[in-house]
């Protein structure tokens, strides 16, 4: 009887569900030039610094869509469904998607919606980027400059109730590596509904001149309450892939040639080769 039961269980392991969802692996390439952008660290027009640092990369959003079209926007954009109201374009109805990096609360209010996972190796890396590359040092809850990685780490452990660096998701292994003229990252679109001929397309949200990302909302997300520190931790907007045109703005890098998937076994190679500048 036990043998029969075991045999039945083993048979179950081999059951093919024929689900239409697949994982699609690929690479994303971003031109080296994308690491160059301007940042206004003060209130006057003179307080602008030219940055050349790939740690400033925002999240790269990727989606699988039924197709892409020219002419909807000033860049290649997924096809859209019916326009249901005058204040918003049609939904792209994506089949799936993912991102390379995501907004991560950086333990301080001054870092809300400014830190992206997969961009920094260490706490000092974060501090160095904001202080040296942006000329805009990280401030603690009292407005004082965070002096070093140890102070940063201790504060993160306090407010996150963590005890090890591997739990802190905005430091660690970085996503991109330099390969010739491009920064390259590997990525997987998980559990994506497969349709023959679908297009994988995406863009990278880059910080505006004032350092803000259009895809992050500082006024939402989990609320942080720790003694005198009270603020939202920020969160990505929730309709990014449905309405990309709402969020792509000047300075963002967009896929010009979408990858067409013809087989469930296909992989893709995308270049975010088009710098969008609003004219």
């Amino acid at each position: 009887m036990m043998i029969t039961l075991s045999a039945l269980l083993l048979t179950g392991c081999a059951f093919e569900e024929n689900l239409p969802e697949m994982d699609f692996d690929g690479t994303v390439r971003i031109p080296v030039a994308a690491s160059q952008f301007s940042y206004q660290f003060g209130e006057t027009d003179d307080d602008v610094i030219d940055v050349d640092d790939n740690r400033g990369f925002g999240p790269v959003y990727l989606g699988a869509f039924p197709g892409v079209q020219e002419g909807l926007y000033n860049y290649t954009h997924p096809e859209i469904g019916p326009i249901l109201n005058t204040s918003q374009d049609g939904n792209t109805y994506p089949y799936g998607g993912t991102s390379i990096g995501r907004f991560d609360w950086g333990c301080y209010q001054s870092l809300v919606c400014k830190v992206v996972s997969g961009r920094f190796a260490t706490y000092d890396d974060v501090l160095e980027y904001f202080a040296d590359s942006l000329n805009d040092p990280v401030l603690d809850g009292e407005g004082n400059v965070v002096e070093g990685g140890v102070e940063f780490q201790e504060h993160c452990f306090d407010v996150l109730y963590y005890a090890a660096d591997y739990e802190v998701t905005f430091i660690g292994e970085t996503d991109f590596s330099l390969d010739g003229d491009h920064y390259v990252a590997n990525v997987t679109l998980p559990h994506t509904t497969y349709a023959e001929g679908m297009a994988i397309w995406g863009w990278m949200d880059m910080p505006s001149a004032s350092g803000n990302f259009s895809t992050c909302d500082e006024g939402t997300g989990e609320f942080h309450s720790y003694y005198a520190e009270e603020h939202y931790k920020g969160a990505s907007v929730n309709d990014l892939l449905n309405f990309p045109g709402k969020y792509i703005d000047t300075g963002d890098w967009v896929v010009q040639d979408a990858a067409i998937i013809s087989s469930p076994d296909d992989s893709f190679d995308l270049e975010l080769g088009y710098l969008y500048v609003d004219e």
Partner: protein
Amino acid sequence: MTPSIWNWGTSMLTNSLILTLLSLGGCDRSGTNVLPQPNLDFPAVVEVGNLEVISSSQLVELQSQGYNVREWCDNSGTVARETVGNRQQAEGEPLCYYGVVGMTEIGQRGGVTFTFNGTGDDVCLIVDPETVFWNQSVDLDQPRANYAYPDVEEDDGDVDMFAGLSAYYNGSPGVEIGDFTGFYTDSLGAEISIEYGECFQAGAQTGMNNAHSGRATTEYCGLDTVNRENVEYTVVLETFSVPMDDGVLSFAAVVVDGGCSGISPNECTLSGESLNPDTNRANQNTRSCTVELEESFCQGQGALLGFCCNYPDMCGEDANYDEICKPESFEDGGFEFNAENFCDSYPGLCDCTVAE
């Protein structure tokens, strides 16, 4: 095998058989005994026709009708026409509707539909199913005296409101209740359902915009009809539950010019919607004392408790009258009256006579 083991085994087998038979018996329970039976005298799908959008001043006039409200609405086509949004009200169209709908066959959708024309501006859709519902306050630590008396749940019904452009409505008015679901086929042939309904009601949780009120509670939503002047909309009041006491659900419905924020609809925005279930429309009048019951509910300040203690037949039948209506109950609530002198404080809520 020893006798004790044999007995144990026999006992287990017997218990298993009994349990199996009981389980099979449970399969016979359909739960239909807790639902009212359909009454062919009252159709389960009702089409009201077209309602004119009512102005705020006409709404005030409607609210002053008391027990004549159903009749006033039926004759409201003769009320002087006004401008609503960007257009003039159509001659002869009623401004509101008070009516009844019957119980559906089990497993079928029932309800009411009506239409209205866009004004080119915001409008507010309001529906109020009979009668009034509240949860009895049974908290011993922090009792809410106003809700100390139980509600009569058997006289309460519930409808869920949906609305959108008539062009998107897929039901058959008066025959079959539908919805506003449409389908879009993308370039690869994938079919995607799209909600074309525009009546979104906020829920208790952030981001929830497809909520509906519970039993006997007013539902409302705002619609923006800008650029859709004279374009027809359909409103669906889908039956969710029908009162157990008579198997007929009465309701009131209106479309008000302007958004909902200036109205803040509540139980008393449309009162008198609990109608006698008579097949002759002329006899579908507001049930006695239900207007006062609704007004007491909206009044707050313990008026509901005072009303129920004076009109126990209008409130929960399983109430412990002596305990709930004792003077201390009113003292706990800090009210300036009690069960005995309530009518002196609220004479307007005490001049009705409960029907036999």
